């Protein structure tokens, strides 16, 4: 089967679902729309599987590496012969992997939503937007043209906006949606400039061509002639690209939108803000890895930002009460891991363990994090609250959720043999071989991760006896089935020989688990779990004591280090009040004032000279005479 055809089909399906539902069926046939959308997604997933199977097993490797296809490359917006935005599809191991992840998770979320969103007034539109997101995300991972990628990148952003703001009558949701969009937009600004810079250097927007031509010119433009504002163009471009990636992937300091984005429906959080969209940044860097590789500085920056974010978010996660927010910070932290992995990719040794590790973690994280979110969704659906302090003892009430949640928690904590263990191990090993101090941060973060995840777990399912308010049972099968499937996947995906399929240069790269190496991180994680159990297994006053003993430090963390407030200050006070209002004031009073002033002065002048027209005929004659004399003087003087 022609893969171009499959992929086009795969893209068109969710798009057409979006169009049909949004324009025609969305309002009147709500339930139908939901099922239509889910069905379409099932079909899409099916094709994605076919695609993956074909790519990995039918075509297989050529010369020991997975090849890169560009089955479709059509001109869309031609600037010049070289520069153009094309509708181009790239098929290589990471795009196929992403294809699988996106379509599959999206399918799970669709199924889950069928029950979860029941009774919503805009049920139909919800599915339309989900389809739109899926389309955009699939487009993003398949893009073979950097500008095309940027377009889908933006589309992903807008569908995220629409879905976060789905409960649009809720002011907090609207604000969150706005915040999410604006923060990522700010990052996209950098991304766009990066694109322009790279495109200018490579004289192309086609990703494959760009990478090739940049590699060829590498020596050439590290010279003096290609610096821009004091740095080499390559560094600039890579940093700006990373800025875009950081925005989408919620890296510090652009992470502030993600916790707020939890205002959206929980399945949306599972799909967009855990498994797929937020890893787009990681994907972007992976996609351009050959370019990033050329600049060690940028990679180091990425690694530092990744590690820093991982630790930072993990610390904040320990203090949050809203279960979705905890998960959001854990997402930020985990993506930090992925960035770290990319940053510590050891290109000198040619091993590229980091790259593969990042992809691997992306892959496993998608499953366990969406599982966590869907589990949280199931819980919220039942108890109608987000606050973990109001929960407790839910394990009997919702056994399926309980078990799957536990599995996911173990996975994220890096406990063998769950999937998270393997990918985290790969990352730590990559970090260890490159920068030891980053490795240390990674290990500490892993321990903290284990702690807060189990804090969450214990608070929800154990802690105190079941509150009598929660008499509702676990949701329908539509809710439980996705949980089960995902739990199973979390159990088994760790054993996939990931390095065989995905590596920086296409050649297989075995990711080995050394027992000796694993001891430290795993035991630290277990320690974290232990502490969590001590504090939260049963209701006691230890947590409160602990909070008190930390004092202002604890409050600072709970307030997310006041970063939101800083942003608020910058945007509201400085940008809005100072710059915006000043501009408006200048416009009104100086630029426009000048126009009005010139009119006013003309009028004033007109009033000033009105006395000349005195009504006295003798004065008129006098002026007449003076006029003649002056004229005479001037004319005689001139000649």
């Amino acid at each position: 089967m022609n893969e171009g055809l499959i992929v086009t089909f795969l893209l068109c399906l969710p798009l057409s679902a979006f169009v049909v539902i949004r324009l025609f069926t969305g309002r009147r046939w709500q339930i139908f729309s939901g099922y239509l959308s889910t069905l379409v997604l099932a079909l899409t997933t099916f094709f994605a599987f076919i695609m993956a199977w074909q790519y990995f097993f039918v075509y297989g490797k050529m010369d020991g590496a997975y090849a890169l296809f560009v089955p479709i490359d059509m001109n869309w917006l031609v600037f010049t012969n070289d520069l153009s935005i094309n509708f181009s599809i790239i098929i290589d191991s990471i795009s196929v992997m992403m294809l699988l992840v996106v379509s599959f998770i999206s399918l799970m979320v669709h199924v889950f939503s069928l029950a979860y969103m029941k009774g919503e007034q805009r049920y139909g539109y919800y599915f339309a937007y989900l389809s739109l997101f899926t389309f955009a995300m699939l487009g993003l991972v398949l893009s073979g043209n950097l500008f095309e990628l940027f377009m889908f990148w933006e589309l992903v952003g807008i569908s995220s906006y629409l879905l976060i703001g789905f409960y649009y009558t809720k002011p907090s949701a609207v604000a969150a949606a706005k915040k999410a969009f604006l923060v990522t937009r700010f990052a996209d600004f950098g991304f766009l400039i990066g694109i322009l810079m790279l495109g200018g250097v490579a004289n192309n927007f086609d990703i494959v061509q760009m990478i090739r031509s940049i590699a060829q010119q590498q020596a050439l433009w590290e010279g003096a002639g290609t610096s821009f504002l004091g740095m080499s163009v390559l560094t600039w471009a890579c940093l700006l690209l990373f800025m875009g990636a950081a925005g989408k992937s919620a890296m510090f300091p652009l992470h502030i939108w993600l916790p707020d984005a939890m205002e959206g429906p929980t399945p949306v959080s599972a799909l967009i803000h855990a498994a797929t969209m937020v890893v787009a940044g990681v994907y972007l860097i992976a996609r351009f890895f050959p370019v990033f590789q050329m600049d060690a500085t940028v990679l180091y920056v990425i690694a530092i930002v990744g590690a820093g974010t991982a630790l930072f978010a993990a610390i904040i996660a320990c203090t949050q009460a809203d279960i979705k927010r905890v998960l959001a910070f854990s997402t930020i932290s985990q993506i930090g891991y992925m960035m770290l992995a990319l940053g510590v990719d050891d290109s000198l040794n040619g091993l590229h363990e980091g790259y593969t590790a990042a992809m691997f973690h992306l892959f496993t994280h998608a499953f366990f994090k969406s599982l966590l979110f869907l589990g949280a969704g199931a819980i919220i659906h039942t108890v109608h609250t987000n606050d973990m302090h109001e929960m407790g003892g839910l394990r009997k009430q919702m056994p399926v959720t309980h078990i799957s949640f536990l599995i996911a928690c173990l996975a994220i904590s890096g406990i063998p043999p769950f999937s998270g263990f393997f990918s985290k191990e790969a990352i730590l090993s990559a970090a260890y071989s490159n920068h030891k101090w980053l490795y240390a941060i990674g290990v500490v973060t892993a321990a903290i991760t284990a702690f807060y995840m189990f804090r969450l777990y214990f608070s929800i399912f154990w802690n105190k006896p079941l509150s009598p308010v929660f008499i509702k049972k676990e949701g329908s099968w539509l809710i439980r089935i996705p949980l089960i499937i995902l739990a199973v996947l979390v159990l088994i995906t760790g054993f996939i020989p990931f390095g065989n399929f995905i590596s920086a240069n296409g050649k297989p790269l075995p990711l080995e688990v050394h027992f000796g190496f694993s001891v430290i991180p795993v035991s630290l994680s277990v320690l974290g779990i232990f502490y969590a159990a001590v504090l939260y297994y049963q209701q006691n006053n230890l947590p409160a004591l602990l909070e008190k003993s930390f004092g202002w430090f604890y409050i600072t963390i709970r307030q997310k280090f006041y970063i939101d407030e800083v942003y608020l200050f910058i945007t509201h006070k400085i940008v809005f009040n100072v710059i915006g209002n000043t501009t408006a004031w200048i416009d009104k009073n100086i630029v426009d004032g000048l126009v009005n002033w010139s009119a006013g002065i003309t009028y004033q002048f007109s009033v000033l000279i009105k006395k000349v027209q005195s009504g006295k005929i003798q004065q008129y004659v006098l002026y007449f005479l003076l006029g003649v004399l002056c004229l005479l003087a001037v004319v005689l003087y001139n000649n």
Partner: protein
Amino acid sequence: MMHYYLHLLLPFKQELLLLMAIFILLLLQIFGKKLQQEWTMQWVNLLLLITVLAGFWQVGYSTDVNAMFQLSPLNAFEKSVLAFATYLISLQAYNWLLHHEQIMEFYVLLFSSLLGMFCMISATNLLFFYVGLELSTIPLAILANFHLQKKQSSEAAFKFIVAASFASALLLLGISFLYGSAGSIGFTEIAAHLIVNPFSILAFVLFFTGLAFKISIVPFHLWTADVYQGSPVTVTAFLSVVSKASVLFVSLNFLFSVFHSLEPVWHTMVLILLLLTIVTGNLFALRQQNFKRFMAFSSITQIGFILIALLGQNIAGSAAVVYFMVVYVFSNLCVFGVIALVAATTGKEKIEDFKGFYQTNPFLAWVLLLGLFSLAGIPPTAGFFGKFFLLLSGAQSNYFGWITFAALNLVVSLYYYLRVVVVIFHRESAAVIAPIQIPKPVQFSFFICMAGVIITGVGSWIYTYIYSLAATAF
């Protein structure tokens, strides 16, 4: 041999027609035949129309009579323009004249004035020119007083006659000096003998200010506003359109041929005067409340713009001026027609009185609007083309910067025209002018004016025709 003499009279056909009208009117007056007013107006108008048409009959060549009188194609056309403007004014005066006792005298004076202008235009001799000028001016003073019951009217007439006499004294002084320096009062001799020296410059400046008074160039304009305001609207219209046009036509001849040798002198002079005129006219027009007074300053500004064309090359310049005067006739009479009608029926003359005018009198409002837009130089009205050609021919000179400044003054003048438009379209107002019955002749004149305002511009043949006439004149 009858035929032979008639042929001799041919160059004077337009003047003779007017003379005939004056005589008939006087005779009727003498014999006390009190005709019906309406009937009088009809035949007088018809005669005017014939005078207009006569200007297009047998004028393919220039005729010179005794170094006194010349009829060139351009002259004939200019006279037709004046006669046509008078015709329109006469049509628009219908409401006012219908109840005016002195209608016969009115027409006698009007025609005398027109006759004077004709003489002025055709004159090739300073004496004849002077007589024509006075003949055109003195009756106007009487006409200004034709609101016999209004003191303002007499005041206007007094100011006019004093200012005019003073101006003509200066003009005469200039003429006497010219005579002294050139030794002749014939145009061709003067053109041939005049050389640039302080004496001839003095003579020229004095002479020119006499003319400048008539077309109200700043600073010789001060009488204008008062006289316009005090006179009956019809007379104001005549003053601002016909009287000015005639003197402008004459000045073309003077500047481009008679005083050709003084060109560097009068270029500076005209430049200074035009800038002063435009700016002052604009500044004064900004604040005016009385519609007629407002139009006075508007016409002053317009004259300033017309002067720009004098800086250009002679053919293009005079073509632009004559063309603009044609346009100016139509556009100004659109405005004055409405003012006259409103003044005659309601007695209101203030701009404020026109509040909400559009709601009650949409047709009149459109006429007024069209006129104002044409004066402001907004396409597709002819005023746009007129202004464009004026500035275009003026810009050929070395004064590009100053002309740009003048062009920017268009903005100010647009402002006060728009002020009137704003008033017309005022939506909430208590005292609106009631719907006005438009008499047939007035309506007819409005249609002509509107058609003129549109067609004179877009129909390029009118300009082309004028250009060809101007080309024969030099």
